[in-house]
């Protein structure tokens, strides 16, 4: 059994590396359109978001609808850091520190939000995470933050009331967000972060802690009866998931020159989008959510030539993917297909002949 999970994980890492090699090859040989090039980093952060949300939805079994909120925290924390240290340190170091700061601050917020949220279950938990996601986005939109020789200035009113001196610098300008960011993210960094995310989530799943998290998901009462602390392990999954969403946020903010919190990037639409990746890829199936994230990020762009029919086709693809993944008939068909392939490989002539009949 050990070797089986090991092989499964190796395939997952392999897919990511293969994807990287193909894309990098296309970019270097000049065969990739600029549109696709622009999608490379988004694909990476969507994969990270999907995998990390799967930790809460699939592994821990709680429906969370506020994932974009955590991404928002990571993005803003790292953007503030980036603007503050702009030009004072090498780009690579800046990004590395930004990632750590983004993940750490998001983890703290994940913990604080987890305290009230994880007392709830089911639909109630989903609604409250949705609310927190929206709160984060709206609060960030109302904050003005500036820095001058006297230190940091903070206001919730407007940029004038910051009272900055002549040389002062406005970092966060309310709804106008943060500008002047370094665009240092690229495909290589994105893929490395995807691999780190997979490493953390997959290894956690196959450890003592992961076993406890899944046991609690399967039967809370039985888990308590054998002495597993429900609140501790639910919190563990929630905080790790939030921190990884924060990492995705850092990648997001380092892929833009100006960062704004709109309902498009950090709103509940985004949270639902990430949830769609998870559900379509299979709840609890890490590799599936990864693949779903890639396909559903590329698809809308590739369907642009259909103009008005774009979202119609997109919806149809969503439905057929869902059917392919979870309709009983489709599962049956896939099983028989897999069996046929396996048989052809193992027992050549004899059974293959019977098959043809």
């Amino acid at each position, binding site marked *: *059994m050990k070797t089986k999970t090991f092989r499964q994980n190796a395939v997952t890492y392999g897919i990511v590396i293969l994807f990287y090699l193909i894309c990098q090859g296309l970019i270097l040989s000049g065969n990739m359109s600029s549109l696709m090039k622009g999608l490379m980093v988004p694909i990476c952060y969507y994969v990270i978001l999907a995998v990390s949300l799967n930790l809460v939805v699939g592994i821990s079994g709680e429906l969370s609808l506020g994932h974009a909120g955590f991404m928002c925290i990571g993005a803003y924390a790292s953007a503030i850091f980036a603007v503050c240290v702009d030009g004072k340190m090498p780009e690579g170091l800046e990004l590395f520190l930004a990632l750590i700061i983004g993940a750490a601050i998001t983890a703290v917020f994940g913990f604080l939000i987890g305290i009230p949220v994880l007392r709830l279950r089911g639909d109630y938990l989903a609604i409250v995470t949705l609310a927190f996601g929206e709160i984060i986005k709206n609060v960030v939109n109302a904050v003005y933050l500036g820095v001058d020789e006297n230190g940091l200035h903070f206001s919730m009113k407007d940029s004038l009331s910051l009272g900055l001196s002549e040389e002062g610098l406005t970092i966060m300008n309310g709804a106008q967000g943060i500008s002047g960011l370094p665009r240092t993210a690229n495909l290589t960094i994105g893929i490395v972060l995807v691999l780190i995310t997979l490493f953390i989530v997959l290894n956690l799943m196959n450890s*003592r802690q992961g076993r406890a998290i899944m046991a609690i998901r399967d039967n809370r009462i039985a888990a308590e009866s054998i*002495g597993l602390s429900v609140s501790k392990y639910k919190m563990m999954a929630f905080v790790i998931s939030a921190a990884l969403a924060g990492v995705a946020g850092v990648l997001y903010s380092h892929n833009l020159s100006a960062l704004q919190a709109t309902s498009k990037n950090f709103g509940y639409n985004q949270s639902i989008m990430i949830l769609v990746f998870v559900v379509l890829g299979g709840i609890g199936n890490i590799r599936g959510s990864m693949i779903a994230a890639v396909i559903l990020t590329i698809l809308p762009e590739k369907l642009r030539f259909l103009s008005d029919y774009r979202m119609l086709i997109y919806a149809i693809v969503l439905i057929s993917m869902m059917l392919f993944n979870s309709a009983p008939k489709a599962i049956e068909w896939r099983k028989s297909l897999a069996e046929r392939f396996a048989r052809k490989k193992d027992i050549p002539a004899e059974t293959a002949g019977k098959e043809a009949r």
Partner: protein
Amino acid sequence: MAEQKKNMLSVESLSISFGGLKAVDNFHIQIKPHELYGLIGPNGAGKTTVFNLLTGVYKPDTGSILLDGQNITGKHTIDINHAGIARTFQNIRLFGNLTVLDNVKAGLHAHYTYGMLSGIFRTPKFRKMEREMDQKAMEILKVFDLDGAADYKASQLPYGKQRKLEISRALATEPKLLLLDEPAAGMNPQETQELMDTIRFVRDHFDMTILLIEHDMKLVSGICEELTVLNFGQVLCQGETKAVLNNPEVIKAYLGD
């Protein structure tokens, strides 16, 4: 007090009511170490409620519960398990999506520890602990003849084996006292016979005290050394199995007038 110290489980005047209903009223029981004790009674007598009180699912209104001299009254389920009580459930509660092996390993959770980072970075400690857990879990599964099914999902097991797996998981927590809630429910006579042997074996092999709820009189009279009969939440009769089963009041409670 010296008398109580000798008992593995000592319960005094335990009561709980739900609304106006006194579900358990002035319940008391003394179980000696290494004893196989039966709790019987008609449907709705409050047997499972007693189990839920003993394991902290419900907090008792009055009364005290001493486990091996340690007061566990009103403690949380998790702490009670750590103190040494493990249980199975009337309606089987397994971790259905985990493998049979992982179900037992979840039971070993508190006894083989390593940190989260150890698990993520696959340190030598992680490998050592996991190896030991695998060994220990397989040992327990072997007792129940489940070692061949270790890689199956728990929900794929047939009913009888699921019951056995639940007992294995409870045993993995290394309890002092094992509570079995209708272990023979839904089993045929042959399976029940096997189960009786297994329960006896568990008691001797793991040096365990066992309290079980059961409806199957053959099982009860076959393995239980002492009985408590519960009727309408109250103790009707207590004592050695044979004497209790011949008590006219007990027969009346079971068969009616």
